[in-house]
């Protein structure tokens, strides 16, 4: 069985800017696939090429069994004949049509019988939890409801693949989380493959089966969310997802399970051996805030070696605390479950549970290897 979508070697230029550069991925049947990256990374361009709203310069796109785009063979099927469903960032719900007319439109275009259309619209409204709102005008709906109408319209024809372009970015935080769960549920129910574009890492991490992290037109990593988070392929991915502290260090020694580091002469510590060890002895240690542990100065800390640091700012985040510390002239951010006893200006013990090693000049190279 062929994948739902196969994109091979996609390239697209806007003037001198390479918006998409050798973008290759496949989406399996029923898979939730995300393109994640900052604005201008090429994720939306890629999505629009798959939709047929943009014509790529290079590469090929297959949807189901059909080649819909091939630069070499000059194949470019227009969007209306690609059998896709798409939800736009701005919803693009037609203001001059009722909710039911919006959802019915793709069926009407296909010339589906009226009775069938009515049935399907009722069904879709039920899936969306909007039964009885069919006669409303879009201007009478809330943002979340308009979002649902846009989704319903995209689902109405049972598309081969559903394309979503930052669909939740115009909703407020609470609604966004609710829609996240609903979207996932609707997808599972319909058994649809989804290509989801977002700049919100938490959305991509929470919903995707697999995701591609993009920057400057190129895919930096293509993997399941956990792997992307735990084993970022490049410095860019490491940086873009979550928060990272960078500490310059020297590699003193390694064995099969551990690595011993000298933190610029201030301390020597041993951490579990990371997947990648740069050549040479200089390196950058990258540690996420939750992989650092805090303890009282001089007291015992979970991790092997404790560094002495000063608290500059304590912030209460509700479920946890965030600390900004000054250590050896560098600012270090730590997230801890408990922190009631610690105040600004206190000296604390700082331990490193685990981290990744990068080339010493990785900060200036987004594509430097990270694992």
């Amino acid at each position, binding site marked *: 069985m062929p994948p739902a979508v196969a994109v091979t070697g996609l390239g697209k230029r806007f003037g001198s800017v390479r918006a998409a550069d050798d973008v290759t991925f496949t989406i399996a049947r029923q898979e939730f696939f995300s393109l994640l990256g900052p604005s201008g990374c090429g994720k939306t361009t890629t999505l*629009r090429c798959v*939709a*047929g*709203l*943009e*014509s790529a310069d290079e590469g090929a796109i297959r949807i189901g069994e059909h080649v819909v785009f091939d630069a070499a063979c*000059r194949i*470019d099927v*227009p*969007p*209306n*004949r*690609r*059998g*896709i*469903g*798409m939800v*736009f*960032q*701005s*919803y*693009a719900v*037609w*203001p*001059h049509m009722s909710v039911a007319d919006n959802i019915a*439109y*793709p069926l009407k*275009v*296909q010339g589906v019988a009226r009775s069938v259309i009515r049935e399907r619209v009722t069904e879709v409204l039920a899936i969306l939890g909007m039964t009885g709102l069919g006669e409303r005008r*879009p*201007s009478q709906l809330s*943002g979340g409801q*308009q979002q649902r109408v*846009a989704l319903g*319209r*995209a689902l109405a*024809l049972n598309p081969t693949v559903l*394309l979503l372009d930052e669909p939740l970015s*115009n909703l407020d935080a609470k609604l966004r989380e609710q829609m996240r769960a609903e979207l996932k549920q609707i997808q599972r129910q319909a058994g649809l493959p989804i290509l989801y574009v977002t700049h919100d890492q938490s959305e991509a991490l929470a919903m995707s089966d697999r995701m591609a992290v993009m920057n400057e037109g190129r895919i930096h990593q293509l993997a399941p969310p956990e792997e992307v988070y735990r084993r970022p392929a490049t410095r860019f991915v490491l940086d873009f997802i979550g928060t990272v502290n960078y500490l310059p260090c020297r590699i003193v020694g390694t064995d099969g399970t551990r690595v011993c580091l000298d933190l610029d002469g201030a301390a020597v510590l041993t951490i579990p051996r990371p997947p990648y060890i740069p050549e040479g002895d200089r390196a950058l240690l990258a540690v996420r805030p939750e992989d650092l542990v805090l303890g009282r100065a001089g007291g015992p800390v979970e991790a092997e070696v404790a560094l002495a640091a000063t608290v500059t700012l304590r912030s209460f985040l509700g479920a946890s605390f965030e600390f900004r510390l000054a250590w050896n002239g560098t600012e270090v951010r730590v997230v801890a479950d408990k922190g009631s006893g610690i105040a600004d200006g206190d000296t604390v013990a700082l331990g490193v549970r685990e981290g990744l090693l990068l080339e010493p000049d990785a900060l200036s190279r987004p594509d430097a290897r990270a694992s």
Partner: protein
Amino acid sequence: MSSVGASRSLGRLIDWRIWLFVLLAGFVLVTVIYPIFQVAIRSFLVDGRFDLANYERVLLQPRNYVAVWNSLWVSVIATVLATVIGVVSAFLVQRTDLPAKNLFRLLLILPFAIPPLFAAMGWVQLAGPVGLLSQAWKAAFGTVTVPWNIYSPGGIIFVLAVTNYPLVFITVSGALQRMDPSLEEAARISGVGAGRIMRDITLPLVRPAILGGALLAFVSSIDNFGIPAVLGLRANFYVLTTRIYEALVVPNMPLATAMSMLLVLVAVIAMFGFRAVEGQREQYAVIAGKSVMPNVVRLNRARPWLVAGLALAVIVIVVLPLLALIIASLLRYWGADLTLANTTLAHYTAVLNAPAAQRGIVNSLALATGAATILVVVTALISYLNIKERMRGAGLLDVVGLIPFALPGSVIGVGMILAWSNPPVGPTLYGTIWVLLLAYIMRYMAFGLQATRTTLQQIHGSLEEAALTCGASRLRTIKDVTFPLLRPGMVAGWVLIFISAFNELTVSVLIWTSGSETIGVWIFLMQDSGFTGRASALAVLTLPVILIMFLMAQALARLEERRAQAAGTKS
């Protein structure tokens, strides 16, 4: 992001859009570029050779300098007056606790829809030698003369001002309505009083709108024929438009052409002058897109006085001239005493039985309908190619189509005669009604382009892309999404063009011929030959058409505002 129709393969490059563009370009070439070219070229030709003799003749005749000079100073003073009236009334209506605001607004905009010729006639009935106000003055003060003379530059300036101030009122009202109120609130929080806020914050911020409105009023004054014709010819006071009219009555085509170029020069210089005063217009981007609750000044003790003053002004400026027109149409003879015995419907029967007047009514209705319909369709297509298909050529057509808006009507009239008297190819249209249709199309193309372009710009591209991804073809998308959303803009443009074409006189009076009279031309000719009663009767008969169109335009504007507000809360 590229538009809906990014070009795909070489085979499809030569598609319907190219053909459509070629057709539209041909239309613009014939209706706009060709007449402009004729005026520009012919003014430099004497017996088919390049010669500056025409200009020499224009410049050697003192009467012509005087006309240029008169056009300028009369228009400048009238513009200043119109700006004062427009700005003050806009502030009172938009930013104070004035009662019956909607009624005031409606009445204040009304003169925009009334032909300037009617205003001139109304003021003659009111303040002319035997006018109603003049008679009242004489009776009240026991004199045989009045301290004013409507047939004078002063009379022209006054009537131009009370005719053109709505242009300032409309632009300034719009700016006041859309201004971000937090700018004023910030000043209020700093402890500044409401009056001071008006002077220090609000007025400077709407300055671009005031200057923009003033420019429109100036161009409209320079362009006007009806008012200086009715009030100036009798006093031997000529401005450029009436001079050109006279040169064509003789007829002296080369002279009229060279003077047209002078008129263009005056208009261009004026526009650059305004640009210079205006300075950097983009300096502030404080006018937000949506309507908001504005900062309202309480009038307090001044309220009854200001209300009475504004009401009086509206009655004098708007209501009285129309009333005088109606009275004149019912009086047995001009200047007769206002008694029931002196009233008659004879003028109406005379007008309705005159074949020329009948033709005028039919012609004006047909021309206005035809020009509005053709223009709305053509400009919608140009704007579609320009905005939605991002065709550069269509962008050029848009720019070219806007040029006639800056051209005084007399120039368009002269251009039409030159272009269609003995065209190199095609029939001689001058002398038929078609030349009037072409003139209106040229003159009001900008209105259609403006209305359709702005509406299309507001239709977000994703609305059309959504239809494509729903399986609709490009043409189907246009039919189901683009066109329904564009329709309100097309209707608004249609109404605006209809009103303007229906009221047109400056061009029509130059190019009408027997059989192709318009209402305006016929009314002017009657008034000019002393048949005041008949002229007024026909004017009164056209008022219902004008009023219905005016109210429709107002209702449409309201609707548009509400739609914009609804859209503003959505995305």
